[in-house]
């Protein structure tokens, strides 16, 4: 049978059923990373550097090893030296080799009969350090005389003349900038700085490892990608991937922060050495000091505009630091900065510099929020100076289908104009403001990714279906995948159960990141369901004694495709499944592929804030998110992504920041001093979902998870500028910073 490439009449897609893992999660039964125990299990703890940068002269573990109840101690000496540089960086980040590169860098670990003994043993480990000068700020790190975090790590693309801390450099854009600026009536050039933030998932990293001397192991952990964990850990432990079974626990938030390993190889090494299962759970302080926060950044933006609001030229210089190892987040920032605009002349330049901070790992749309904060702040300032409506100016310059983007690709159907128009038409846009209040808006953008996925869809003899997939469910994806399978097969949602499998149960899937799961796994599920339908049609054809090509699948049943095919009553999925053992055996559909066509996503946020002129404290009083989802499979969870991302962005804008002392030590490694938004800080977060179908997906789905963190930073800065008359070019816009800006304004 053949399939229409696109589908429009939905029965299940777009409804809001209860998620399959829901009851476990409201009753406390769901098992997260730290919730599993094993017979004979030991408890592990990690000793961490008290210095920002130091040479490890000597580590003496003998006293700890001699303590009663201590079963294993490991240091970098217990690990090999992987050839692959990225793997070596990951390993060195899990356990420092010659130098500690940041406050909190692991230097040794202990497994003991209980947590008390493990902690006492850490105190008995003697480490001799030779302190080295450190560098924390990106602009300092790029200077020629900066202390060097690592040497010889610059990529070939980095031009001569920079500090060796500069590891990555990139350039994007097209057109003649000089000509563009010459045609402008107004040119504004501004510089911005943003602090590093943390994903702030409520579940600390946790794992339970069990490994024998034969190189076979099992690992239970909270991760966004069990296959990633397997590949990295097998590489570090020098074992075969097939011998390491990684089972993803339920995951208590990730937002990109659980797309690498921090403790898993350490737990495996301890388990191998002790010959017993080992549980290792980070404390919150360890999460802040030694997991993977975001980049911090320093950005210059220059834009030229004519009096009618046409942007004639745009340039951004983006300097990022992703901590102590090289990373390419600057490329994503440099590509995203001007993505919402259709520009004749645009150029972006991106740098990454090493600093003595923990290694950055993804956080929702990595690189984009700070880049777009800078650009959208300048655009807003220009709208104010020229007396133009901020939505109109964005509509005038908005990227659309056929636009050659600032990073080179030509856009297909995109929803930016639709979100801008929806924002303009929304009552929020024209609602009256109270005293000390201002309204701001910003566009946002994210690329979205496809990638590898494996899906098996088994048709059970009772007419139910199991979908087996390999992507941890962070925010309701099992519900969406079940809905897609039900839709495609023409059966009820409650007839499908989707499970996220361990690494031995199904083939590789890439990590849950890049807003890719509903798109990529959903696509693989559609194709697996179509594979199963083809097989079921063939079974029916065999029973009817007709050509399988003459059978089609309609409303959950096989039926002859026309009067010439023969006259037989339709056979439902349940009927075909019930006789499957007599017609050739069990029925399952499969799909394994590397998907592209993810379809970029745009959003617009509208925000009202109120600034207290006495204290500089700001409060968000109204907030509306407009975003193109392509097609919302389960609207509740799309709304949830929009709301959650918006609130993380609000935190980034107003409160959150890694604060370092002169000594390079992190000053606020806890939720008391690193303050994420709480319920009483916030208004309702209203959402408007636009559906401009992605041509790369049969239902039009686009990823939705990341774009929503991008606009809040500028939306709030713009609201503050319009409400309080101060333009904050440094994040977070904390009360002291706002107050001093207010006082400077007078």
């Amino acid at each position, binding site marked *: 049978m053949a399939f229409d490439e696109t589908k429009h009449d939905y029965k299940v897609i777009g409804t809001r059923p209860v998620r399959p893992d829901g009851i476990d999660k409201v009753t406390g039964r769901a098992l997260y990373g730290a919730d599993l125990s094993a017979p004979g299990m030991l408890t592990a703890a990690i000793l961490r550097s008290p210095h920002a940068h130091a040479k490890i002269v000597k580590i003496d573990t003998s006293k700890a090893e001699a303590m009663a109840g201590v079963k294993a101690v490991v240091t970098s000496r217990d690990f090999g030296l992987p050839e692959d540089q990225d793997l070596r960086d990951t390993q060195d980040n899990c356990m420092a080799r010659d130098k500690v590169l940041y406050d909190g860098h692991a230097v040794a670990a202990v497994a003991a009969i209980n947590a008390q003994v493990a902690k006492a043993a850490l105190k008995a480990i003697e480490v001799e350090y030779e302190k080295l000068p450190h560098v924390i700020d990106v602009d300092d790190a790029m200077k020629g005389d900066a202390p060097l975090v690592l040497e010889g790590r610059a990529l070939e693309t980095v031009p001569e003349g920079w500090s060796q801390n500069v590891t990555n450099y990139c350039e994007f854009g097209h057109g003649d900038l000089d000509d563009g600026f010459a045609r402008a009536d107004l040119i504004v050039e501004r510089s911005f700085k943003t602090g590093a933030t943390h994903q702030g998932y409520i579940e600390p990293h946790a794992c339970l490892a069990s490994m024998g001397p034969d190189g076979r192991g099992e690992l239970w952990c909270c991760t966004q990608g069990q296959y990633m964990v397997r590949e990295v850990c097998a590489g570090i432990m020098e074992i075969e991937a097939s011998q390491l079974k990684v089972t993803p626990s339920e995951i208590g938030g990730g937002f990109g922060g659980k797309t690498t390993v921090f403790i898993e190889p350490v737990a495996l090494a301890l388990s191998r050495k002790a010959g017993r299962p080992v549980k290792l759970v980070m404390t919150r302080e360890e999460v802040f000091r030694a997991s993977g926060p975001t980049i911090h950044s320093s950005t210059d933006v220059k834009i030229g505009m004519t009096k009618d609001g046409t942007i004639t030229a745009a340039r951004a210089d983006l300097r990022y630091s992703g901590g102590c190892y090289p990373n390419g987040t600057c490329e994503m920032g440099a590509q995203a900065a001007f993505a919402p605009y259709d520009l004749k002349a645009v150029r972006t330049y991106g740098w990454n510099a090493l600093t003595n901070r923990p290694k950055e790992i993804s956080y929702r749309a990595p690189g984009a929020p700070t880049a777009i904060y800078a650009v959208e702040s300048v655009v807003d300032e220009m709208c104010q100076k020229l007396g133009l409506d901020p939505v109109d100016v964005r509509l005038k310059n908005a990227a659309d289908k056929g636009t050659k983007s600032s990073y080179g690709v030509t856009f297909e159907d995109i929803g930016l104009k639709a979100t801008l128009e929806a924002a303009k038409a929304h009552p929020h846009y024209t609602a009256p403001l109270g005293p000390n209040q201002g309204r701001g808006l910003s566009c946002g953008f994210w690329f979205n990714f496809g990638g590898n996925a494996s899906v098996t869809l088994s048709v059970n003899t009772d007419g139910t279906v199991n979908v087996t997939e390999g992507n941890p469910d962070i925010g309701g994806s099992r519900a969406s995948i079940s809905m897609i399978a039900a839709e495609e097969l023409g059966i009820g949602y409650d007839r499908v159960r989707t499970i996220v499998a361990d690494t031995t149960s199904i083939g590789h899937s890439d990590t849950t990141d890049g807003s890719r799961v509903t798109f990529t796994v959903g696509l693989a599920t559609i194709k697996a369901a179509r594979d199963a339908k083809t097989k079921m049609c063939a079974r029916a054809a065999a029973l009817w004694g007709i050509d399988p090509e003459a059978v089609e699948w309609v409303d959950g049943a096989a039926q002859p495709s026309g009067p010439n095919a023969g006259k037989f009553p339709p056979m439902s999925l349940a009927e075909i499944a019930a006789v499957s053992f007599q017609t050739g055996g069990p029925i399952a559909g499969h799909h394994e592929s590397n998907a592209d066509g993810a379809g970029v996503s745009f959003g617009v946020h509208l925000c009202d804030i109120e600034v207290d002129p006495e204290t500089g404290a700001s409060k968000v009083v109204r907030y509306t998110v407009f975003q193109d989802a392509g097609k919302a499979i389960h609207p509740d969870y799309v709304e949830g992504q929009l709301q959650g991302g918006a609130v993380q962005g609000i935190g980034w804008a107003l409160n959150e920041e890694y604060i370092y002392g002169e000594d390079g030590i992190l000053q606020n490694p806890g939720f008391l001093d690193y303050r994420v938004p709480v319920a009483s800080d*916030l208004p309702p977060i209203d959402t408007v979902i636009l559906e401009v179908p992605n041509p790369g997906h049969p239902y039009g789905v686009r990823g939705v998870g990341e774009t929503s963190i991008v606009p809040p930073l500028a939306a709030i800065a713009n609201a503050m500028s319009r409400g309080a008359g101060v333009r904050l070019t440094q994040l977070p816009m904390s009360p002291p910073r706002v107050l001093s800006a207010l006082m400077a304004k007078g």
Partner: protein
Amino acid sequence: MKSIPVSTTVNGDAVDFVCAPGETLLDALRNRLSLTGAKEGCGTGDCGACSVTLNGRLVCSCLVLAAEAEGAEVGTVEGMADHDKLHVLQQSFLDHAALQCGICTPGILVASKALLEENPEPTDEEVRYWLAGNLCRCTGYDKIVRAVQDAAAKMRSA
């Protein structure tokens, strides 16, 4: 250090355990009684993931010593449903998709139940201030507030 024997009631069941003098109630619940519904998000009283009730009072179990449970009544998320019948709040959280990852959910449910026992008709602002000690990083709280209010309305009309 000598262990301390503790006799207490958890979700209506009499239980005995021994604990170390410095051990938290959260650790005892999770590690000694296998009640892993309460989570440790911070261990310092800042996230509310470990919320339980102690003699009816809402507490962060990471800040309570296990030994303090002697003779007390402890309530955890595992005790909210009546056998196979979910509590109105639990059902409401499912119906409103008020959880994404769900790690904050046990603590928020316990805290919301305590709120509605004290104030069956809270304003949105009262819900938000009551839950200000319970961090949720996924949802932005919007659907949580709606779920609590819907449950409150159902409980009032029940």
